[in-house]
């Protein structure tokens, strides 16, 4: 009798609510065609899990906004894929848009509408909007509800941007330089708001030029350079590739800089040597690798060195 080997059962697909909020795979985006073609995004891989904040960093022209526009569904990728909650932002547009909020790099409002009128209009375009008054209070603009948008300060406009993005109770919030133009106090208030969203289990992808903002908020950091992500991980993982530095001036006036992967051992050995030889180390300065030093090193590195 012929027997057939039992077909191994396929592992069940993960429940929909366990899908990452965002998965980007081998994403490419080109502008123009033929000889004039320019590839702004050159194979980006990125994942944003639910309940986390990921900061996408990079110098101007690194490809952050080009990447964000594809993720937001405003442009189609030249190659690769984007999945938001397992869905394609272009073919599953309606479902994706219901669950995502976007703050673009620059505000886009009609100056002659008031803050309230803008949000009422915006709420009419959302399937299940939060009450406008609640959103106004969230971004601290309730006292400006009757003010025309053209009279708002840059920071207030930015908060109105955020208010529009929050109307749909987004499970994934995409913020392109959300605190540019905000004063320090407003910036901290926005940070608290973003942390609150994460605490509620929502995911946030943000780009920023403020490294302090990334350090304050992000669970993971991705650094883009020349269209690629050249470092990705927690802050500790990202800076781990960067050496710590010890700098001092010897008695003969010479400045010496040491780079080390083990700052404590190097510093202990240096101080022991100085004590044994009775050498005074002027302006002694020991620094662990920081996000800033890592970012600057990556931004200044020739493109070929980062592949």
């Amino acid at each position: 009798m012929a027997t057939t080997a039992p077909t191994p059962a396929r592992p069940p697909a993960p429940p929909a609510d366990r899908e990452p909020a965002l998965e980007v795979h081998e994403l490419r985006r080109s502008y123009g065609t033929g000889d004039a073609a320019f590839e702004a995004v050159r194979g980006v891989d990125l994942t944003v899990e639910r309940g986390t904040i990921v900061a996408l960093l990079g110098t101007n022209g690194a490809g952050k906004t080009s990447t964000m526009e594809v993720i937001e569904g405003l442009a189609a990728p030249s190659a690769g894929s984007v999945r938001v909650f397992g869905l394609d932002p272009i073919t599953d547009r309606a479902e994706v848009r219901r669950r995502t909020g976007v703050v673009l790099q620059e505000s886009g409002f009609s100056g002659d509408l008031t803050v309230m009128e803008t949000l009422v209009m915006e709420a009419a375009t959302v399937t299940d909007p939060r009450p406008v008054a609640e959103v106004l209070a969230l971004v601290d603009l309730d006292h400006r509800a009757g003010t025309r948008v053209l009279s708002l300060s840059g920071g207030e406009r930015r908060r109105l941007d955020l208010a529009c993005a929050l109307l749909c109770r987004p499970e994934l919030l995409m913020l392109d330089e959300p605190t540019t133009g905000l004063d320090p106090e407003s910036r901290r208030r926005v940070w608290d708001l973003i942390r609150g969203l994460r605490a509620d289990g929502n995911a946030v992808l943000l780009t920023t030029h403020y490294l302090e903002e990334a350090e304050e908020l992000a669970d993971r950091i991705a650094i883009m350079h020349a269209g690629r992500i050249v470092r990705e991980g927690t802050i500790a993982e990202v800076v781990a590739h960067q050496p710590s530095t010890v700098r001092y001036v010897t008695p003969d006036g010479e400045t010496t800089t040491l780079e080390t992967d083990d700052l404590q051992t190097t510093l202990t050995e240096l101080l022991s040597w100085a004590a044994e030889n009775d050498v005074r180390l002027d302006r002694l300065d020991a620094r662990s690798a920081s996000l800033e030093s890592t970012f600057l090193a990556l931004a200044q590195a020739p493109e070929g060195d980062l592949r």
Partner: protein
Amino acid sequence: MTTTTPTVRSERSAAMRRTTGLTRANALLMLRNRLNLAYAFVLPLLPMAFLLFGDRGDVGAAGMALTSTVVMAVLFPVFYNVLSMTVTRRDELVLKRIRTGETRDLELLTSLALPGVVVAMIVGVVAIPLALALGAPMPVNPALFVLAVLVAALTFAVLAFWTAAWTKNAEAAQITSMPVILLALVGQVAVSFPEEVRRWADLTPGAAITDLVRSSWLGLEGTSTDPTLDFGSTWAAAGQPLLVLAAWAALGVWLTARSMRWEPRS
């Protein structure tokens, strides 16, 4: 029997809600601009003054007044207003931001066109008693007259979107609007063109509007100055000009779909 599923119904009502919300905001912005408002309501009705200079019931004066009113109504509240709103909202990045949400492109464009189209319809409806009060003859087919205003308004709204697609900014709209303005005005002077030229001019949207207004209100066929059309025959006479407008609208939709830009050129 066809049935509409609850999902389709709710998607339709959501689309309606989004379009209405955006239209309300665009109408509010239009109403807040007093100069725009004057251009939209007053300018199209000014040609009615032609009726003051002719005898009561004079077909020539009525023809001039009514066609000018309808052409102005589709040029100012519709064409120029929709063009300028679209370009301004694009420059302000409003279009780009709204497109990040649930709103679909067609809803966004509809919301930009509707305030102007509604104003043109109001002007068209107000023109009827106003023209009668100023001595115009009774319209032969008022329903066709209103239909003509509606189709013309929709056609010029579509032409406004196509013009917006290649207009760099709001200032440039003063120049880029010229081709469509010429297409609208050529119908008014086409009567004096030689036959061979007039045959081509009849294919412009402006000439189609002129034919529709003259036949629907005054019962005039072609360039004739003797009213010969009755209610029934005005529908038959409207076939070609309505087709001309529909063809321009279809061309405008095709060109807009190919070339629409939603954010300023970088």
